[in-house]
């Protein structure tokens, strides 16, 4: 009978690509930085993604979870992630060593509309682990510096020790083509030379913003969004030029498991980047 095994050539979208941890080191007490390279060198060099996209990372025996790609596609070959230890998968990743194997599949999600951002002033506001996706777009803008207008970075952390990529951002601060503002809620070291206060206290320090010409990118802990968005609206930045990346539970990354559903969209396909207009237009986004 004809029922017998037909072979379907569909590529399995759930199949991870083996990747090796090239380098890993702590960024803060509970966040580690990972540099990984796909084992297949051709795939590694041709892995294309856009800032703001994420990958599913798997650890054998522990499971799989979504993480933002922190590196920039303008520097191909290595993928970078910053990962906070919170549960089963992240604990397992933390226990790995350099040269160990993990699984990677992706990239997934919509990412930032970088083409549409060209020619615009880019205002990046990050708090805590929000640096993970936003570092990608920041490095992308700096690597393609002449495609963008002003590039402004506001980065906040609770304490200096909790500032992700502190050294990297201190170095970037020296660049004249980047307006970089760092702040901590509290300085418990006595050594902090930059601003003290929540990230919104940086806004009065900004040089005049041309709102229609500005695209603002925001990512941080849930509490941060509310206050930062108020500031951005005060600056008259149009609602659809305020972009944010959101977190949801994700089990598949490819629009099948349903876990990331919001209203009628799947965050893993239609997000995780949304405009502020999407957020007020769609219930439940934040």
């Amino acid at each position, binding site marked *: 009978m004809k*029922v017998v095994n*037909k072979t379907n050539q569909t590529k399995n979208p759930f199949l991870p690509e*083996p990747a090796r941890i090239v380098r890993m080191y702590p960024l803060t007490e509970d966040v580690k930085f990972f540099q990984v390279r796909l084992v297949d060198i051709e795939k590694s060099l041709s892995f294309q993604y856009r800032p703001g996209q994420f990958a599913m990372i798997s650890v054998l025996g522990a499971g799989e979870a979504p993480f933002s790609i922190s590196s920039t596609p303008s520097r191909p070959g290595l993928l970078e992630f910053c990962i906070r230890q919170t549960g089963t998968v992240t604990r397992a990743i933390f226990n790995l060593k350099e040269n160990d194997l993990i699984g990677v599949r992706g990239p997934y999600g919509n990412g930032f509309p970088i083409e549409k951002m060209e020619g615009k002033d880019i205002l990046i506001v990050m708090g805590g682990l929000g640096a993970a996706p936003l570092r990608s777009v920041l490095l992308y803008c700096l690597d393609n510096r002449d495609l963008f207008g002003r590039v402004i970075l506001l980065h906040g952390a609770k304490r200096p020790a909790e500032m992700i990529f502190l050294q990297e951002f201190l170095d970037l601060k020296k660049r004249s083509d980047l307006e970089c503002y760092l702040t901590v809620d509290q300085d418990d070291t006595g050594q902090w030379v930059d601003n003290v206060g929540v990230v919104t206290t940086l806004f009065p320090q900004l040089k005049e913003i041309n709102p229609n010409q500005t695209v603002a990118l925001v990512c941080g802990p849930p509490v941060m969004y509310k206050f930062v968005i108020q500031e951005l609206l005060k600056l008259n930045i149009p609602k659809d030029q305020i972009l944010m990346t959101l977190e949801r539970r994700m089990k598949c990354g490819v629009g099948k498991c*349903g876990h990331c559903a919001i209203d009628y969209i799947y965050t893993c396909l239609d997000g995780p980047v949304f405009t502020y207009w999407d957020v007020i237009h769609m219930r439940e986004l934040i």
Partner: protein
Amino acid sequence: MKIVKLKKENLHPFLQAVSQDAELWAPVRLSNNKHSFQLIDDFSKIDLDYTRTILPPRKLFLPPEFNMFQASFQGYQEDYSHVTPKVLFGVHPCDLHGLLIFDQFHRQAFEDPYYLKARENTLVFGHSCWPDEYCFCQSTHTHIIEEGYDLFFSELDDYYLVWIGSSEGDDCLRLTPELFEESISEEDIKSYIAWQEKRNRAFQLHINFVSMPDLMELRYHHPLWEVLGQACLSCGSCSMVCPTCNCYNVNDHPVLGKNYSEIHRCWDSCMLENYSAVAGGENFREKRSQRLKLWYTHKLQAYISKYGKPACVGCGRCLVTCPVDINIYTVSRALEGEQVDAFWNRLANEVKQ
């Protein structure tokens, strides 16, 4: 479409012939009088006198739990052991529509090989049905079916009109051409039309889906959701029985004594408490009312907005399954502002107590 005739006494010989090299699955009456699609080893167990099975046929394509990979440091082995050649017989139009929705869902964006391979290795034979008081597929326009099956058996008196829906279906008939009659008489046509008209009048339950997307929007913050939320047990049964629910979870299972893990995919429900929980203790849908809204947004609004039809095929399973009578009918009535309903009063009273 080609249509042939099959005498009822020839059904088993035909099924025998098509299931030579394949598993035959068909509705079977369980001891509790409910029906279930089961693997058939004895044709006499097939019971076509049924309204709905407990679980929809999607369980054959994506089983409640199955292994996706054997994963080891040597690599990932895809496991398609749930994909076996099957003949699925006796599927009603609503469930065929459920499969069509599943087909589309698993083809869009990223193709899901676990579903598609299973679907491609299964011959699906539909069967006509008669509505009970919980069926409302007329309202969802899923009481008739034009695609998605290989053969469809319309039962009339002592014979079937068999609709051939695919080239594979046609091949099946060629296995035992002697069992089928090519000529369909004027008489047959008349009795088919009479049957259809009678069936059209037999539907007792109707839901007006047209206004549902607007009502979901307009009553999104209505207190009705709190009442329903307090009554809901968060048991997830409604998702398990619904032909269009697709949510699943993934778990790693290290295999004892072996150097590999199995990566299992198992049915999940957005009605369960931790469905939307994320790291850091945040849960985007902590309240039952929020989870109910998601479920009903999927059924009554999202799909209609995207594809012009609801993600409900009118099978009535949630009506017969939910222990507290929260179902597509009662929720749509509540959305229509129907609060005098006995159901509603009862729920509201229960919640007050």
